[in-house]
């Protein structure tokens, strides 16, 4: 059987490998190649120079990179705090209600993120759902929180909620109840159990959830455009501008490469931490 398995494995891996080679590897390769071309060329048949990277350093693009990474970090931290109790409930307490939460969260993913973010604009804007009813019912006037940096972070937390919640719940489910029981019997306080049992044993889930939310948030675009107005220009926005209005593919590519290198190395760490066979339940 072994030889057959080996052959079938390679053959069945082939179709998706081809799809991902065309849709994933090739674009990354082209972007990498364009990033070392001289400014404003549209073909790869030029003498490479690294001027686009110099532009990145000189023209203050690192500022928007810092904003993007900073907001991604803040939203990841908030997501961890917000998701932990819910993930704990899903893994250890809820029973059947876990299924309800799971379905509700997954179904929300089927709604375009821009429609959901637009919904927040309608909810939070001046005369929006919250401000409008507060004024009509209680006569309280409320400043709209839109078009600020915190609201962008809020948007990131909202959109990437499932990407933290599910890995975290998976991680907590792997903490054996016996270990918690033993710690409690020996007189450990609730916080001590959290600190010395739950967090270390759920670490794989924490790492995967955090990396996933951070990476996706670092390249996010819609949150800052829809909720943030022009409060801050995020890095993905700069990349878009370079490619579209700027018509400067090498610059856009160099900016993409900077993000891809950061994101890619984190992604590889994340992916290598996931033991898929263990998570998805191999029974042999």
């Amino acid at each position: 059987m072994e030889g057959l398995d080996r052959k079938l494995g390679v053959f069945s891996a082939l179709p998706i490998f081809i799809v991902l080679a065309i849709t994933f590897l090739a674009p990354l390769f082209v972007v990498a190649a364009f990033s070392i071309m001289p400014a404003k060329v549209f073909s790869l048949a030029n003498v490479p120079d690294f001027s686009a990277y110099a532009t990145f350093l000189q023209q203050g693009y690192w500022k928007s990179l810092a904003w993007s990474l900073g907001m991604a970090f803040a939203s990841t931290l908030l997501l961890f705090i917000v998701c932990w109790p819910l993930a704990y409930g899903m893994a250890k307490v809820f029973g059947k209600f876990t299924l309800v939460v799971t379905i509700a969260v997954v179904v929300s993913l089927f709604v375009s993120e821009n429609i959901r973010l637009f919904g927040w604009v309608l909810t939070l804007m001046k005369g929006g759902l919250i401000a409008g009813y507060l004024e009509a019912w209680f006569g309280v006037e409320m400043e709209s929180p839109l078009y600020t940096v915190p609201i962008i972070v809020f948007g990131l937390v909202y959109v990437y909620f499932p990407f933290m919640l599910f890995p975290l719940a998976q991680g907590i489910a792997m903490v054996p109840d016996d270990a918690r029981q033993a710690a409690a019997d020996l007189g450990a306080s609730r916080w001590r159990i959290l600190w010395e049992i739950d967090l270390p044993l759920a670490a794989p889930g924490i790492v995967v959830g955090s990396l996933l939310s951070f990476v996706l948030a670092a390249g996010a675009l819609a949150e800052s455009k829809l909720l943030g107005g022009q409060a801050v220009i995020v890095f993905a926005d700069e990349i878009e501008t370079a490619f579209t209005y700027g018509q400067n593919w090498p610059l856009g590519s160099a900016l993409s490469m900077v993000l891809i290198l950061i994101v890619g190395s984190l992604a590889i760490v994340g992916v290598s931490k996931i033991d898929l066979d263990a998570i998805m339940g191999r029974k042999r």
Partner: protein
Amino acid sequence: METGRTTRIVLYAYGVLAICFLYLPLVSVGFASVSQARYLSFPIRRYTIEWYGEALDSHTVSSLLTTSFTIAVIVTVISLVVGFFGALAFARYQWRYRNLFQKFILLPIFFPQAVLGLALLIWFNSVGIIPSWKTAIVAHLVWISPITTLIIAIRAYAFDASLEEAARDMGASTWTVLKEVTFPLLLPGVVAAGLFAFLLSWGNFPLSLFTTGVDSTLPEWLYAKMVSGYSPLVPTLGMLSVLASLAILFAAFLVLILAKSFKQARGTE
């Protein structure tokens, strides 16, 4: 360890609250879609469904719906085929590079979609392909085919390889085994994956944004309207998109229940 009663109540309340919070923006969109005023402000004074009528009559809207639908159908078919075989390579067969393959499949999910979309745009342009709704299909596959693979793989992990071996011992060819044993066993996973593929493609925004050229999908068109100013058609079309997804989900559940009762009826004969 028993969780205290108060903690349990607090956790349940938190769960309910989180779900409400998740759907609150859609409540606003829903209200906005039935407000008569051209410039929205809450509380809504007059309700109307005329925007829905206008949306459904509009030529733009029907072409947007057709584009989104066509893309979603083709993406679903392709991602199911590659996902089916991918899942077997992922979970079922023991082969040399299986571990590496598993990680490779996961990698695109760990990439920001807007950046992938831009990279795809440059890639299409540099080989001389003019972006259109067809290139959007290629773009959607980068994120959706790993997801179908993973979903079908969950099913493939659970299945008993000895069933395949038994069929082979009785002289079935590799193709017959695949058709008569493997496929029926993985079918529930394939159905779930198909549902995910269709709905995620239907609602996808960041990958479509840069890869559709002059064509436009529904989420993308909505985004263009959102950043350029308010139009009552935006919440209406947003709601229509959500309702379409819900209808498909509902239909899928119905089919599932019917199939189950059909099976039971046959079983009792």
